[in-house]
């Protein structure tokens, strides 16, 4: 089986996230790192390979991003991917989640994977859904928030975490699975793997190579258009009670909670 893992380069969690005042978009300068959720996806691919229930011929890391995104691919390879694909093209800049999902789907089509894995969310986009977009374009079943995944009965038996409880779903491959961080504990790359990463094959693709319709990607063609950003409404100053008569204090607390229908 061939597993493709979608990865993304995101600003390091330690870097203060802010908007670039000139473009109104996320300021993406500064330290970047492989999206932490994607390391769980790579680990999941490795565990399928090492588990032996189904032979995995290749694990391919795929990313869409500017030049610097190759670092994310090197990291993915040091964690176990056999080779990587870098989709990079100025025409893709500014794509929203729907356009990005479309572009990635077209890229994945060139690889015909049996399984597409990705991290549940990225630290910067905060969208939590690109797996569903990719799956619809590819015509594959999709699940998100998967926290347990086993090769079973010719497909994948997945457990996923919803706000109403846990579902167990049997999925036929090819499929797109977005994994949550509870699914596994990613391994650390060995120094040998880190140093060997640059030697593994890395293929660069432009939009045309993937058959991407340029009218469907890029900032200008994105159907959701960000118009403004503002500060969240300032919170009013809070009330302070000094406890002298605890009985009275508790009554005041209860009244306060009652006012706000919290009790």
């Amino acid at each position, binding site marked *: 089986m061939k597993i493709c893992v979608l990865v993304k380069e995101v600003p*390091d969690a330690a870097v203060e996230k802010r908007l670039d005042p000139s473009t109104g978009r996320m300021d993406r300068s500064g*330290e970047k790192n492989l999206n932490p959720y994607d390391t769980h996806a790579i680990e999941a691919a490795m565990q399928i390979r090492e588990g032996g229930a189904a032979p995995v011929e290749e694990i391919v890391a795929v990313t869409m991003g500017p030049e610097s995104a190759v670092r994310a691919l090197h990291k993915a390879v040091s964690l176990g991917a056999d080779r990587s694909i870098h989709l990079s093209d100025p025409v893709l800049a500014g794509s929203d989640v729907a356009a990005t999902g479309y572009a990635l789907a077209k890229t994945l089509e060139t690889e015909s994977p049996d399984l597409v894995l990705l991290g549940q969310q990225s630290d910067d986009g905060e969208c939590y859904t690109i797996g569903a977009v990719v799956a619809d374009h590819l015509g594959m079943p999709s699940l998100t928030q998967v926290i347990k995944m086993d090769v079973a009965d010719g497909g994948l038996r997945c457990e996923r975490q919803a706000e109403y409880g846990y579902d167990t779903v049997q999925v036929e491959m090819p499929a797109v699975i977005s994994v949550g961080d509870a699914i596994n504990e990613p391994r650390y790359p060995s*120094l040998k793997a880190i140093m060997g990463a640059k030697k593994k094959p890395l293929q660069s693709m432009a939009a045309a190579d993937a058959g991407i319709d340029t009218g469907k990607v890029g900032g200008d063609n994105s159907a959701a258009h960000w118009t403004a950003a503002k500060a969240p409404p300032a919170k009013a100053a809070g009330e302070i009670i000094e406890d002298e008569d605890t009985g009275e204090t508790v009554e005041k607390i209860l009244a306060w909670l009652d006012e706000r229908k919290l009790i």
Partner: protein
Amino acid sequence: MARDGSSNGMVVPAAFPPPVDSRKEFIKRGLDPEDELIEVGVAIVGGGTAGLACANRLLQLLGDDPEMMERLGEVPVAVVEKAKTCGGHNLSGAVMRPQPLQELFGDMSREQWREEGFAFGEVTKESVYMLTSAKTKLPVPIPAVPNFKNHGNEVVSVSALARYQQRQAEEAGAYVLTETSAAQLVVDEGRVVGVRSGDKGRGKDGEPLGNFEPGTDIKAKAVVLAEGCWGHLTGAAIKEFDLAENREPQVWELGVKEVWKVPRPLDRVIHTFVQPWPLKVAAKYGQLGGTWMYPMKDEKTGEDLVSIGFVVDLNYRDATTSAHDLLQTFKTHPLVKGILEGGERVAWGAKALPGGGYWSMPKLSMPGAVLVGDAGGMVDTAALKGVHHCIKSGMLAAESIYAALKRGSNDFSDYEDAVERSTIGTELYQVRNTRQAFQKGFLVGSLLAGPSIMSKGRVPPGRQQWHRDDAEPMFVGNTKDRYPKPDGKYVFDKLSSVFITGNATRDDAPNHIRVQKRVPREVAETWRWMCPAGVYEIPEEAPEKGEVDVIVNYTNCVQCGAITAKGGRLTTPEGGDGPLYQVT
């Protein structure tokens, strides 16, 4: 000294040494088998200014000598750096003397330095003050303090500079292994043959977790220890090879720094003496320190920034001396308010630096390895200058190693002579006795310091001695009474400061700090106040006198190194942990 380390009722931290044996723990005898190790040409431990200058220079030399580059193998130069990126753990003032960097990158103009984002302007004006009270100050004429003359120097950020140097090194062919700590020096038959990278995936008590990945031996023809202040392997190497024989003990200083966005640009570099305020003059407190304020014009964003810091010598005796809180106190002075008020704090950090100067510098080479930068104690603390020495020593090390390997030798001892003969040696020699007198108190020190500098070191004669920082008897004094209360906008507490360093140490990482857990209150208070990150705490119910337990919140640690000077030991943390400094 009494059995509990007390001396006249005061307690000495050195009587409670940390449970660590650096030679045993940090030296590995012999390499792993060939198929398990990685082989490189030159291994540089530490991706700071000095280590990267060595890498930059080596690659320049190798770039012109393809045959030698080939001889060094697939990985001619490897840099091992424990932070997430080079520069992540680097912090300094800093006003740098420009010549060594101009020598290293001969094609770059100073304007280009600024465009790259690591330099922030040439110094054209400077002032020195003595803070006489919380509200008043006295200007000190520069001719009286020539060590503070900074005309023509450049304000830089070592954190940003290291990032630039890393990019240059990688483009020239270096492998920079970030998030990788060097846990052991590998020694075989009396020579350094490599280093071993640190394990990853150990739990709180050192037990291997599910994703445990052991370190790897890195075999190298030459090892450069550029670990900064006070390196883990450097300390072990000094013991193993007797590099401190006939030297004065090393002493340290702790600097805490903030960077502020300011409404009006600062037009000059400012240094202050901080006695009589906020440090105490009386000898019994044993305090000595100073501050800086440097203007930074950020060419990339157009913002006006100010770097402000407080440095305190770690040989003080009042346990409540806290460099972080002293910085906050300093900020309440009208001199500083006039500059920072209306602005916004954008960075904070802390770092120890070696203050012993010339007589405390260890021997700089050993079979198979050399020391560069702060690891070699190359800081002029009278002038607060060390960055240019880092660069120069890195270059000299590169040249010595290149020449030796080229002629098939692994004797790098001529590096030592090169350092002595260079500006590093001459500058440090001139101030070799300038600061030792301060051990007798601020007044005595001041009387001797001026003449010492002006005579270019001829006075006082001979070799002045240093006493170890952890041998100072501690008492719980009242320096803390001056500290202002944090308000979260201008005066900050330690925890919120640690937060903005981007400190991302994992919750179940192994504890990398070694201290005795039960010590007299005076020692516990020393650690608690000294640590800028709030690592050491004393439980509320602990007794006022006698022995107390120490809580070690090691996940707050920003790896400044101060604990190593005052009775504890910072050992090799897991790679990737700690702060992510950007503009310090």
